[in-house]
């Protein structure tokens, strides 16, 4: 079932030319969702010096069940600047919305695109809204949610390869420490491994500090085609690789340790971008690690190390800020998880890195960045986007 994916060479080039993030917070009690996304859109427009009239198409990203409203985008559309615009909406993870927006520009129909997302998780309950991903006949009676499913996956992985809680805790220490440099991050903590191991056990083996928080947030990124991108910014972040892939739905029917869909998505993106040795060829990675163990699994699925090598890789320091391939300088998902927005934040952060605009979390000389998003139970669907400072 090997897919012949065309390299992005020869196709119309697209770049991320700017972004705006609304800081992730436990709750924005004084704003409703339209205000959050409006602020993100204004930040992105300010970042690029564009007005909404310069935007040819809009791709939104949201989730009705989180919003408690059917067709929830209907009421944030104007706040996103969608009035009388060619628009559409992806219901899933933000990286998929970026991926689709890029395709729309590549078709030649549009020169610029605005991708928006928001989540007001404080008005919802992630246990219910993730639990409702269960099909009603066999899974719903089990009462699964993102905590228990991530725990099952983490446990399978740890058992298979002898990953220790200490190794997983190193991810939490790194990411929440990195978050201190990120003005948009929610959980900025100076942790020790012992702090993580001493936090409350939620579902074996996941402790509170092993798991993402739930955040309110919003973000927007602006994409532009070659010829236009260079007029908007001196440092476009060119999309050189795109990959998206979905796996089997039932967690019990696939090898939860393998992340087959992440591997395939990475394979597609790497082929297009010419990435052969990820650890060397990629300068910085922003990935969606719902729990600490996920980051170690993603090291393997994204080819940063061999299968089972995730624990050793984190111990080696190579994914720290001063390492060979810093992962999640922003703090990643463990620091902030505004659910639908998380993927867009990864793209925004990756683009800031290759544009040299990542402030205190800048990885020096970053020329190639990887942004990863995940969706569905136990990372069922994965999307990988490679950004580079030059094409």
């Amino acid at each position, binding site marked *: 079932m090997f897919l012949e994916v065309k390299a992005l060479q020869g196709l119309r080039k697209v770049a991320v030319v700017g972004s705006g993030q609304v800081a992730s917070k436990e709750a924005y009690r004084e704003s409703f969702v339209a205000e959050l996304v409006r602020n993100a859109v204004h930040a992105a427009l300010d970042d690029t010096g564009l007005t909404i009239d310069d935007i040819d198409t809009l791709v939104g990203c949201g989730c009705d069940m989180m919003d408690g409203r059917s067709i929830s985008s209907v009421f944030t559309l104007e706040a996103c600047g969608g009035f009388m615009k060619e628009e559409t909406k992806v219901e899933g993870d933000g990286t998929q919305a970026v991926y689709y927006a890029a395709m729309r520009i590549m078709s030649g129909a549009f020169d610029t695109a605005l991708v928006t997302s928001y989540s007001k998780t404080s008005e919802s309950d992630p246990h219910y809204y993730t639990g409702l991903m269960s099909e009603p006949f066999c899974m719903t009676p089990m009462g699964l949610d993102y905590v228990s499913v991530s725990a099952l996956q983490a446990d399978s992985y740890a058992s298979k390869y002898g990953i220790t809680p200490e190794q997983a805790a190193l991810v939490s220490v790194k990411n929440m420490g990195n978050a201190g440099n990120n003005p948009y991050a929610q959980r900025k903590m100076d942790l020790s491994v012992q702090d993580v191991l001493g936090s409350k056990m939620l579902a074996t083996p996941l402790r509170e500090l092993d798991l993402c928080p739930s955040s309110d947030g919003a973000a927007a990124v602006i994409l532009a085609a070659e010829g236009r991108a260079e007029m908007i910014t001196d440092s476009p972040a060119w999309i050189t690789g795109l990959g998206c892939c979905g796996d089997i739905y039932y967690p019990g029917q696939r090898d939860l340790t393998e992340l087959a869909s992440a591997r395939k998505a990475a394979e*597609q993106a790497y082929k297009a971008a010419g990435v052969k040795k990820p650890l060397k060829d990629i300068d910085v990675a922003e990935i969606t690690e719902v729990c600490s163990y996920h980051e170690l699994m993603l090291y393997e699925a994204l080819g940063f190390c061999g299968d089972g090598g995730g624990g050793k890789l984190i111990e080696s320091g190579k994914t720290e800020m001063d390492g060979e391939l810093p992962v999640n300088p922003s703090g990643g998902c463990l620091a902030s998880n505004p659910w639908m927005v998380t993927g867009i934040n990864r793209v925004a952060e990756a683009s800031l890195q290759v544009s040299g605009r990542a402030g205190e979390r800048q990885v020096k000389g970053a020329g190639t960045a990887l942004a990863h998003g995940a969706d569905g139970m136990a990372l069922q669907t994965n999307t990988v986007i490679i950004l580079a400072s030059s094409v």
Partner: protein
Amino acid sequence: MKKNVAVIGTGQTIVKMRREDVDFPGLCFEAASAALQDAGVTLEDIDAVVFGSAPEYFEGVNAPEKWCLEASGGYLKPHFRVHTGGTVGASTGIAGYYHVASGMYDTVLAITGDKLSEGELQLCLSTVYDPVFGRDFACGAPSAVAMQARQYQAKYGITDEQVAKAAVYNRKNAQNNPYAQLQLDLTVEQVLSSPPISTPIKLLEACPGSDGAAAMVFTSEDNVKKKYADRPVAWVKGVSAMAEGTMYTYRSWAEPIALLTAAQRAYYQCGITNPRKQLDVVEMYNAFAVQDLIWAEGLGLCNRGDGGKLIDSGAMYMDGDIPCNPSGGVLSANTIGATAMVRQVEACLQVMGKADKRQVPGAKTALAHGWGGAIQFQTVMVVSNRL
């Protein structure tokens, strides 16, 4: 720079009020299999899948595309979900088009569906309204369109009889469509005397709620030339999806500005300056009979305010000069998730000459329209059997 894209195959399930023999993934599997078979391809040939379904509340399962992933052909393939309310079927077809038009993928499966029988439909739709200011009024979809009908009929003097005629002809057309849920032989009197759902809308002027799915296979021009030169295909000639605002009190629902713009944009892409003449058949998203007339105006099939005259003239009937909804339209089957895609499927079948008893003879160019949201999403796709 824009690449040409064709539809080489389509599939739809027979639409019923309640399919108790399949679950949602099973329904998707039926439509996907039918489309692959019609296109003469297997999953090996499919490079990517794009899925669409309307509010998750309908089936009560969040991220239903994940549940339906394998059944929709997405195993270890690119796969994501589009959701734009009532237009989702069209938005998903449009997404399938952009996948191929981008140059990244050669052959793409777009699939949509819903099982409205598995939820409380109007309760779900009532959550569209603002939780603070709107929910007390919330009475689902019919009441919103009732307001639209009032504004439209008052502004242009459209009579209830004219609206009822739209219901009659659509339901009659459905008798030629084996996939339609409702196939009714009605008179204007029967329609007018049917119980009111939300005045002025009467029961027989409203769509049903349905279970069903549809799918389309899009491919590149290169691929058509290499492998499908001997077969009828439907070239996508124009595509547009526009949204107007939501704040109810600021808008006139009698003026579908998003549709007027979407139609203009799609027509511009394919050189249509006189839609009434240059289109051979139109499939519209007429969830309620009055919308037949409003959308006809929005698509430029007649002048603004002349929807009543248009229906009176018989032009929209199968033997008229601009046949509309040979399938029976949305009045005859409405899964919401697949509905706007079924309009695209039917338009493709027409120009491919595969519409059997509902074929408009010699149809070369067809338009598929989609509508949804809080009356503000509009989509237009024009297809033709010539490049």
